[in-house]
């Protein structure tokens, strides 16, 4: 063999040797800069990995809670690992057999993870520790349950309400009064909301909006759920059948489409393109481009950060006349123990501490309400969210709702959002309304839109119900039943 071959062989061996000897970074590696306070107990502690989605100030809130846990005892050390797309990574880690000890998911992940056997059921652990269902606000607990078992427990919650710009209301007080509306209070029904919106609107000379009183497509995060405020539902709670074409859902879309048709799809498109990103002073509500908007419990923190002087109010988002309220969509992040993790017992100890003592720490720092029924005595004093009471009441309101627990939720939601987009942009055929004016034209436009909306919603139901049935059929087959 020529020398060059020896050289090559030596190089390959060296590469493999270095790769082998180079130790993997380990949770137990001690970082003197960060972990000095735990120096004495470092070696004796069980080290847990906790994957969670939050970054920025919300991530810091989680880290603070974890720090408190680490300080509270000397047997466990939790490492907070901020993980983007945590659901996908956790699923792959679970399949690969190397999941984290604790994982923070979204509520919509619970069913796929539970069905896939990727989470440990928590009921027995809860029973042993004395953690009862009445510790929680029922709807938030339900988010982590599936087929009668608890797979994950709620952490950071989402409750939504109407935010209204008091400055705009005051500026147009005379006009509001002239229209028979009270400028000192927010609307109480959707019909009211529409009337307020009309007065608050301001336009440029060419008809492009300068201020919109309200826009159903802003911020656009819950476009699929408007039907709930009209008394609808996206699935039949008794049978689990999907009901996107429920008359109330159709009515909600007709209502939203009314805005697009009244103010012009193109003009609204131009108007919306001028909105800045959510977390910026150019947020449409914070900048004053939209006077009323549905937003989550976190929003006051963002408003005060970007425009501390802004005068705004928060109230339950109004329901359509005759629909019982108040109501809010309730969602939550959840935390669970992946099956196959290294330290399930210690993981539960951490989760138990989080559920009993940790949640108030993060909720305060993130400016949110709690998923637990009885807040600790010192929770409210100095809480940064001054509007918290509205959200706390909504969380416990009997008509507040959670989204239908279905294994195809992600795709269902995407299709619903797309259907909303389609309806919003759907051009009314000019030939159909040619020659009509005034109320006759309006009625014809609405009838045409309703037809298209019904068709679109029906299509979503047909496609998604078929997919749902298919999943159930295949799961039954997987469980050993005979394939039809």
């Amino acid at each position: 063999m020529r020398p060059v071959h020896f050289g090559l062989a030596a190089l390959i061996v060296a590469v493999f040797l270095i790769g082998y000897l180079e130790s993997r970074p380990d949770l137990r590696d001690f970082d003197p800069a960060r972990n000095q306070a735990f120096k004495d107990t470092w070696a004796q502690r069980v080290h847990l990995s906790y994957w969670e989605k939050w970054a920025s100030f919300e991530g810091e809130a989680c880290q603070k809670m974890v720090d408190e846990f680490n300080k509270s005892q000397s047997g466990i050390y939790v490492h907070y690992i901020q993980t983007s797309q945590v659901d996908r990574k956790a699923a792959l880690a679970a399949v690969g057999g190397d999941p984290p000890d604790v994982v923070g998911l979204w509520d919509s992940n619970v069913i796929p993870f539970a069905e896939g056997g990727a989470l440990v059921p928590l009921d027995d652990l809860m029973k042993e520790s004395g953690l009862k269902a009445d510790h929680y606000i029922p709807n938030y607990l339900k988010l982590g349950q599936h087929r009668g078992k608890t797979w994950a427990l709620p952490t950071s919650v989402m409750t939504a309400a109407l935010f209204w710009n008091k400055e705009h209301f005051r500026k147009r007080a005379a006009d509001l009064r002239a229209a028979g509306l009270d400028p000192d209070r927010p609307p109480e029904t959707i019909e009211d909301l529409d009337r307020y919106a009309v007065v608050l609107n301001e336009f440029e000379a060419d008809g492009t909006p300068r201020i919109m009183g309200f826009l159903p497509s802003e911020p656009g995060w819950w476009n699929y759920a408007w039907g709930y405020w009209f008394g609808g539902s996206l699935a039949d709670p008794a049978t689990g059948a999907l009901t996107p074409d429920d008359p109330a859902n159709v009515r909600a879309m007709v209502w939203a489409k009314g805005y697009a048709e009244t103010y012009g799809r193109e003009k609204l498109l131009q108007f919306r393109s001028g909105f800045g990103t959510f977390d910026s002073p150019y947020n449409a509500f914070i900048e004053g481009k939209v006077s009323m908007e549905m937003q989550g419990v976190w929003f006051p923190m963002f408003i005060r950060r970007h425009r501390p002087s802004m005068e705004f109010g928060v109230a339950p988002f109004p329901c359509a006349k005759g629909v019982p309220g108040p109501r809010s969509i309730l969602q939550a992040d959840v935390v669970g123990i992946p099956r196959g993790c290294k330290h399930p017992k210690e993981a539960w100890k951490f989760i138990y501490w989080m559920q009993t003592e940790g949640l108030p720490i993060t909720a305060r720092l993130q400016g949110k309400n709690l998923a637990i029924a009885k807040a600790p005595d010192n929770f409210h004093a100095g809480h940064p969210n001054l509007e918290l009471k509205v959200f706390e009441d909504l969380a416990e309101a009997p008509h507040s709702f959670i989204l239908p627990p279905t294994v195809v939720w992600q795709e269902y939601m995407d299709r619903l959002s797309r259907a909303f987009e389609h309806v919003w942009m759907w051009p009314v055929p000019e030939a159909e309304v040619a020659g009509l004016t005034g109320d006759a034209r309006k009625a014809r436009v609405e009838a045409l839109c309703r037809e298209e909306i019904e068709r679109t919603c029906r299509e979503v139901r047909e496609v998604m119900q078929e997919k749902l049935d298919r999943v159930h059929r295949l799961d039954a087959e997987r469980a050993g039943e005979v394939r039809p």
Partner: protein
Amino acid sequence: MKGTSRQAVVGYGFILPWLVALVVFIGYPFLAGFYFSFCDFPPLKSPLFIGMDNYMELLGDTGFHRSLGVTFIFAAFAIPIGVFLALTLAMFLNARVRGQSFYRVIFYIPHLVPTVVVAILWLWIFNPTYGLLNIVLKGVFLAADAWTGLFFSLGAAAKGTGCVRPAAAALLAAPVLAWGAFLSRAGQAMAKRRPARASLVRFLAAVALVLALVPALNAGLTVLAPADMQKLHSPGWLSDSSSFPAELPIAPSWALWGIIVMSMWGVGQMAVIYLAKLQDVPMELYEAADIDGANWWGKARHITLPMISPVILFNVVMAIIGTFQVFAEPYIMTQGGPEDKTRFVAMFVYDQAFQYQRVGYASAVAWVLFLIIVALTILAFKVINKHVYYAGR
């Protein structure tokens, strides 16, 4: 060991690391994907063999058909425009001018910018209210409309009623002037006798032609497609799902136009490949053509294009394959919206596998795509090969 077999062993030894990676990271997933395409396979559950069900579902899946449509429409517009632009650019970059290398670098640089950065940058450029593109468009149309307004009434044109003002007759002077300068015997005679003056006259004629064409085109298009022309003044780009031109059934949506326009940003890379081939074209051919009295177009048509045709074929095939891999741009800029108008097939596969946990179905889609790409590539070879000249090789 004999010399040749020893050489073979050494050769294989050298490519072994690559070969292992190929088999493990490409070969295995490729075949596993084929098997999974016959299974129902949510990543957290075990794969369940379901025969041809996934493929049968594909046949009726309107979402898949839509993304395939988006991809084909993108290909139908982006590839020809890209090839044309790259070729034109390459010809300019091939010209012997001062600072030639500088221009070449400038046009290649965009290709070096990571896709994610480009996508975020273009998000701003496409903003309908504050974006650079619409600000420029607004300015251009302000000037063009003011100029057109002297000859035609645009308001009347949009309504389809009589829009021609008396002054429009003055526009007819431009083609007459151009005819006089370029084509008439007097013009040709002047070009020979007084080349300097002739150049000036021809330049003025060209300017007059452009100035006459702008209002004629502007008014003409406003009569033909008033809504499209109105929108062109300030398009909604990435958030607009309506087609442009609206009358053309297969026209891309404004959002897709956004991605097509953005994809031209990287055309410099294609141009560099053309440029390399352009420099290979033997000078003797041009010299011979000059002697035969060929003009610029004749040389381009009969020498340049045939000589670089193999590279055009290569670029077209690469572009076809690339179209089916478009992912990052729509994923970052539009998330497939509005109304799925920018949901390319690659994004569809991603959604199925990672959003909806349907790895089996996604594998079936991926395999169908693979077959489509192979078929298109063969087709491209068959069609273009007839027109490709390999210089006797």
